[in-house]
């Protein structure tokens, strides 16, 4: 085993396991680095490898360490850690070419495990690079006298040759849905809206620039301030936190649309909850789901993989014009003794005998005129009467404060009201013509029930900070606070053109990657194959086509590699001579591959004197025809005849 092979292998293994350092326990990463360093020192100095008992001891110590760190030896984390440690340990007994092969196979396997943690384009590209390194090392093992550059070239050629096979497998391999084929449930990190809202929960979310979903509209998109993406609806308030309350009511909502429908497609990132976000008010959706009485669209199972759905909504509508009495009661629920000042304020609006709509107007006017501020960092209000403290003392809050206080005031004035959370707005990707809605677009607003109008959306935040609904959070909060916002959210307010182009293009690439590579599921496969003109798509048919395709590709490559065999097709004379040799071979006198015609003839003549003259003559004629200067048709015919006539 040459030293350079070992160094190459060390380098490729280091490349393969480097991304895992992110989530491996620190002791594992340091142990791996230490083992690899130790191995390179031993290689450099030529000292013998460690004793067998020492390695056994180390192995058991590692097993113990994993058991302590993870409390198990199974599952994704523990198994990946175990695999990586075993690879590093295998290095310590690397002696033969077989050991190198084992390590190369293992490192290919570790390359795959990286995808448990990230499936982004950069990860895929990096893994391609590591694969190249591994294959280069592999070639080095068998061809040690090839320099690095040609080795890289061969490895690249090998990987390029694998592309058609990869494509066939990717497109045609039956996507069987089930735990065996999918990634672990926890493969996707999730963050997003919760089904409870308390002061600070949304402002925390607005610090994340993670994508919640992407939307492309079939027609003209609605105005930005109309884009309210409906999520959890919260009814019940305990003075601090809003929760959905009793959800066991299963009467279908009533709905009358009053304007044109808006059709759009949403690609929802996994969030491990059941909400499917749709524009206010939802009408139709293309995936199996249920519509609750308060217009929440719920998926049958938590969304733990990327989900794409087509949907239809109406911006103006009558929702639940007739509401059951006990629902009205739910929408009026208040913690009885808290926030006396707010209760009193609401009562003053009612005192004038104003109707419900006038009360709503008064409340909004109050919020508009009393110097309220929209801020990411409102003061903590730990007191029991947090609404009072907010309305009359601090007057600083984020959307959850305004929604919460507004609904409280409405209920205090005997107007049925509830809190709706979701997302508002989104960033327009003008290159890809779709909207990107991020966690930083999370929002909370209010709905009041007015007789004759049903549930009507009221967004108190829009009164205090219109920029929030017209542009985004960064435009609405004070300039001093924008530094806390995620970079991308800040950039959207006033970015340099090239940067936003770059960013939006990158987002498109990621979008396509998600759609076509990661999101290539049974439906998409079916749709794609149908668009290619394939009929009768079953997994049996796909397997047949796949197998055929693979053999076809391999066959084509084989033909290409063996082309010189066909190029050097023996001509007639040579074919006749080779036939002659085969005849003689059957009689026990085969010609050696390197044996010239005359030498062979001499040998035959010695062994079979009765053939001597004929074979000498034939050999001489063959030599003259094959190596001679003149192409004599007559001589060629004669030779062919005599060769055919030879009887042994």
């Amino acid at each position, binding site marked *: 085993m040459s030293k350079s092979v070992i160094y190459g292998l060390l380098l490729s293994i280091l490349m393969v396991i480097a991304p895992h350092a992110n989530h491996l326990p620190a002791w594992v990463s340091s142990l791996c680095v230490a083992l690899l360093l130790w191995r390179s020192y031993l290689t450099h100095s030529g000292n013998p490898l460690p004793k067998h008992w020492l390695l056994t001891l180390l192995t058991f110590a590692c097993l113990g360490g994993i058991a302590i760190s993870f409390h198990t030896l199974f599952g994704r984390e523990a198994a990946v850690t175990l695999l990586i440690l075993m690879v590093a340990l295998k290095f310590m007994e690397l002696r033969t070419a077989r050991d190198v092969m084992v390590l190369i196979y293992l490192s290919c396997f570790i390359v795959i495990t990286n995808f448990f943690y990230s499936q982004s384009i950069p990860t895929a590209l990096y893994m391609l690079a590591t694969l190249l390194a591994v294959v280069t090392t592999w070639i080095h093992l068998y061809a040690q*006298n090839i320099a690095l550059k040609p080795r890289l070239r061969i490895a690249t050629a090998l990987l390029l040759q694998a592309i058609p096979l990869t494509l066939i497998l990717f497109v045609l391999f039956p996507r069987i849905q089930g735990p065996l084929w999918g990634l672990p449930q926890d493969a996707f990190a999730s963050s997003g809206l919760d089904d409870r809202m308390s002061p600070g929960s949304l402002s925390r979310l607005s610090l994340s620039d993670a994508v919640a979903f992407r939307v492309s509209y079939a027609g003209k998109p609605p105005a930005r301030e109309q884009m309210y993406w409906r999520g959890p609806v919260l009814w019940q308030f305990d003075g601090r936190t809003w929760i959905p309350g009793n959800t066991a009511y299963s009467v279908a909502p009533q709905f009358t649309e009053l304007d044109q429908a808006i059709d759009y497609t949403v690609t929802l990132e996994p969030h491990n909850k059941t909400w499917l976000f749709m524009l206010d008010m939802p009408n139709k959706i293309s995936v199996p789901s249920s519509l609750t009485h308060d217009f929440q669209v719920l998926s049958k199972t938590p969304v733990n993989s990327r989900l794409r759905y087509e949907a239809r909504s109406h911006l103006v509508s009558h929702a639940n014009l007739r509401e059951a009495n006990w629902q009205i009661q739910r929408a009026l629920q208040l913690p009885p003794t808290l926030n006396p000042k707010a209760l009193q304020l609401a009562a003053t609006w009612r005192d004038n005998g104003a109707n419900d709509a006038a009360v709503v107007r008064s409340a909004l006017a109050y919020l508009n005129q009393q110097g309220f501020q929209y801020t990411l960092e409102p003061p903590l209000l730990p007191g029991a009467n947090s609404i009072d403290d907010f309305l009359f003392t601090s007057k600083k809050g984020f959307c959850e404060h305004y929604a919460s206080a507004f609904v409280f005031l409405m209920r205090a004035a005997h107007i049925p009201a509830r809190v709706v959370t979701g997302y508002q707005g989104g960033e327009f990707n003008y290159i890809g013509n779709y909207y990107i809605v991020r966690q930083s677009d999370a929002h909370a607003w209010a709905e009041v029930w007015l007789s004759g109008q049903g549930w009507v959306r009221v967004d108190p935040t829009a009164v205090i900070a219109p920029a929030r609904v017209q542009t985004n959070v960064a435009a609405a909060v004070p300039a001093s606070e924008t530094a806390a916002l995620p970079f991308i959210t800040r950039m959207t307010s006033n970015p340099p053109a090239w940067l936003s182009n770059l960013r939006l293009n990158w987002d498109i690439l990621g979008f396509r990657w998600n759609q076509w590579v990661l999101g290539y599921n049974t439906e998409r496969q079916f749709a794609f194959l149908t668009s290619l003109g394939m009929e009768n798509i079953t997994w049996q048919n796909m397997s047949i086509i796949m197998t055929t395709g693979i053999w076809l590709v391999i066959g084509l490559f084989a033909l290409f590699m063996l082309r010189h065999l066909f190029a*050097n097709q023996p001509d007639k004379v*040579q074919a006749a001579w080779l036939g002659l040799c085969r005849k003689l071979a059957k009689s026990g006198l085969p010609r*050696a*591959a*390197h*044996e*010239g*015609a*005359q*030498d062979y003839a001499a040998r035959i003549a010695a062994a079979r004197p009765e053939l001597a003259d004929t074979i000498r003559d034939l050999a001489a004629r063959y*030599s*003259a025809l*094959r*190596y*001679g*200067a003149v192409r004599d048709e007559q001589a060629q015919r004669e030779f062919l005849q005599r060769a055919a006539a030879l009887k042994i």
Partner: protein
Amino acid sequence: MSQSLNNVIKQAEQIILGKPQQIRLALTCLLARGHLLIEDLPGVGKTTLAHVLACTLGLQFQRIQFTSDLLPADILGVSVYQRDSEKFEFHPGPIFAQMILADEVNRATPKAQSALLEAMEEQQVTIEGLTRPLPAPFFVIATQNPSYQVGTFPLPESQLDRFLMRIQMGYPDAQAERGLLSGVDRREIISRLTPQMESSELLALQQRVKAVFVSPALLDYVQAILRHTRESARYTHGLSPRAGLALLSAARAWALLDERDTVIPEDVQAVLPGVVNHRLQATGEHQHQSNGTLARELIEAVAIP
């Protein structure tokens, strides 16, 4: 086929008993306008072979005994001041002959060796700024003791390459040796030899060698051989294109000796050991194999396409 060439071979075989292969190879070398290196122990007939060839072919013959104190001027010649004409006059050295026997070429210092080798390559010598052509045909047979003998300067690979072939004489077989022991003194016979050929005839034969036809099929074979030496791990480095050219011209000459006007693979195989032995070197594990085995293996490893 030239009758006189047959006579040459016949006459040589009468004197150098039991070595027809070596005689033919030496003639091949001569016809292909190459130079010959004979490597063997003293007393196996190297000098006799050279002498017999020179006499039978009717070539001017010079023998240079290489010693450690031999100087280039001893080979090439010197200018000596002539008192009567009051001028320097050039006295040509022994190199100015048609056939040179450079005996024990590895005994001399590299400086003297290179004087000979340069003359071989250029077919001319330049002394004191004046270029003097060497006679044609010009043929050098160098002999060499195997280099493990004491007090020798082995020729470097680059200079070995100047020789078209390197052959070994080997001990005669029992019958030949018997004839040798019982026969007349060889030197006596050589002195009585009559030339069987004019030097102009030899030049014409050399021209005919160039005209021997080489077919594409044969070139395939030669290329396959070259490729094999370059790809195989058995050799430290593959054969050079020059070695390929040498192989071809030797094969042509061999074909002519065999009275054919086309080269066949057997010709290549016949000359291959002589041509490649001093150009190939086995790698580590095969180093101690004798040269003959190396060439034999090369032949057997390459199929005739």
